[in-house]
């Protein structure tokens, strides 16, 4: 039994009378508790795929099954962290994190009480009452991710959460994310275009082809957990990286779109 199944899902937009294929028929089967990365050049439909799983847009064809139940066009069944951190600038960090709970009808007081220990434990202690613009990029990403986590769905979609961070912060955040994943046993789908990041974090990596996106390969990452920074230098890691580089290199180099 798979946690999440994407069955022949595709998406076509019509723009200026022309059909734009954002994503070709894609099928994925993801067991519970996995960390799965999706890698591919920009514009290949990764965000589109997430928007469909999150129920924000409807696929042109195909189905999305969560625990066997069709969730096409239904939002709120999975946690989704969009490409930007999207913290509400008029709310403090604490009040941003509890947004999902509030929408569920949990009282503000109760929600704050539940969120507080989480903030402390996962590196936001002392920032509870700050406003988002006062925080660094990494801290804002933490807040956005904790908000998604606190919404408490089994499946969490993360769309390039660390894309805008510098290399050092990025490495820290990866370790942080793995800790959260181990603590909470969520099923995580993670978009990135950084090969190292994909290998370091994932159990499985789905590789999408250049636009219009099509599923090209699924790679299983045989690296023992917990992963450490030494993992990045192991032979296994290097050979996986070679495989992925080859897969992505077969693409036409650059046609200047995003």
């Amino acid at each position, binding site marked *: 039994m798979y946690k999440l199944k994407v069955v022949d899902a595709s998406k076509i937009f019509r723009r200026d009378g022309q059909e734009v294929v954002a994503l070709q028929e894609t099928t994925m089967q993801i067991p519970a508790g996995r960390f799965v990365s999706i890698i591919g050049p920009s514009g290949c439909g990764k965000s589109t795929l997430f928007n469909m799983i999150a129920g*924000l847009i409807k696929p042109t064809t195909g189905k999305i099954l969560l625990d066997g139940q069709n969730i096409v066009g239904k939002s709120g069944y999975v*946690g989704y962290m969009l490409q930007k951190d999207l913290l509400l600038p008029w709310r403090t960090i604490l009040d941003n994190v509890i947004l999902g709970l509030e929408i569920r009808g949990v009282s503000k007081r109760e929600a704050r009480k539940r969120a507080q220990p989480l903030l402390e434990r996962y590196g936001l202690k002392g920032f509870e009452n700050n406003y988002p613009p006062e925080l660094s990029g990494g801290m804002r990403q933490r807040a956005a991710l904790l908000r998604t986590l606190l919404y408490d769905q089994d499946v969490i979609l993360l769309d390039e959460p660390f894309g805008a961070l510098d290399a050092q912060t990025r490495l820290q955040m990866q370790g942080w994310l793995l800790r959260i994943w181990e603590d909470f046993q969520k099923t995580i789908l993670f978009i990135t275009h950084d090969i190292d990041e994909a290998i370091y974090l994932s159990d499985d990596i789905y590789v999408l082809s250049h636009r219009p996106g099509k599923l090209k390969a699924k790679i299983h990452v045989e690296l023992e957990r917990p992963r450490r920074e030494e993992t990045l230098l192991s032979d296994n890691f290097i050979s996986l990286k070679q495989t992925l580089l080859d897969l992505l290199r077969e693409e036409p180099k650059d046609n200047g779109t995003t």
Partner: protein
Amino acid sequence: MAQPEKKRYIEDEKKRQQRMKRIVFGGQIGLGILVIVLWEVLTRFEVMDPYYWSSPSTIYETAKVAFLEGTLWDDLVYTSLATLAGFAAGTLFGSLIGLSFWWSAYYSRISEPYLIAFNAIPKLALGPVIVILFGIGFFSKVMLAFLMTVIVTALAAHSGIKAIDKDLEKLLYSLGAKRRHVFTKVVVPTTMPWIVSSLRINIALALAGTIVGEFISSRQGIGRMILYAGQILDIDLVWVGVVVLSLLSMLMYAGTVSLEKLLLRGQEPKQ
């Protein structure tokens, strides 16, 4: 081993700003006093004709009499209340109209040109109609103050609606939100700085509306007092009215600024 004290120069932006603030504030007060003193001196030596220009001391004496023996206090209360009621109703109703445009893009686009057209009407010219419709009492003044402010606010709120970040809406839906959640948690807070930015203009407009209403026909109010004083050629009393209105206007402006702070809590007003 004591090091010899070195002269150190430390940039202190805050200190510099505080210094500037003090000087500016002092200058502002000084300028005000200078104008009043000049006014007094020039009229006393009849460089300016005291019949037309009155003088600060005469205005003060006349005001004292008008407060203690006349109806100036009641007039002031009347005008203030009419202005505040019109301002509050106009701002509230205008915000609601503006916010309501979020509910439907069709409704919003269909009504927008009418809103702009209505805004272009010189509302004060409608004064006589309002007085005929609503009588010469308190309510017609409130109505004029209301008309002066409602469309300005609606247009401001409408600009706010147009500036809403679509991705924030998307985020809320991804957290299982219904439209009403998006409304209270994103639409209202995003629009608030726009609404607030219209407050300062609105309070002055509301006051103008009330005064014009009192000019047209009224039994009370500072506007009526000024009109009456003009008719009996009591120019000192006209000046009292003008000064009292200016003070009232400043006070209301200050009140609006505190209201802004309260409503925004950390956000900046837009435009």
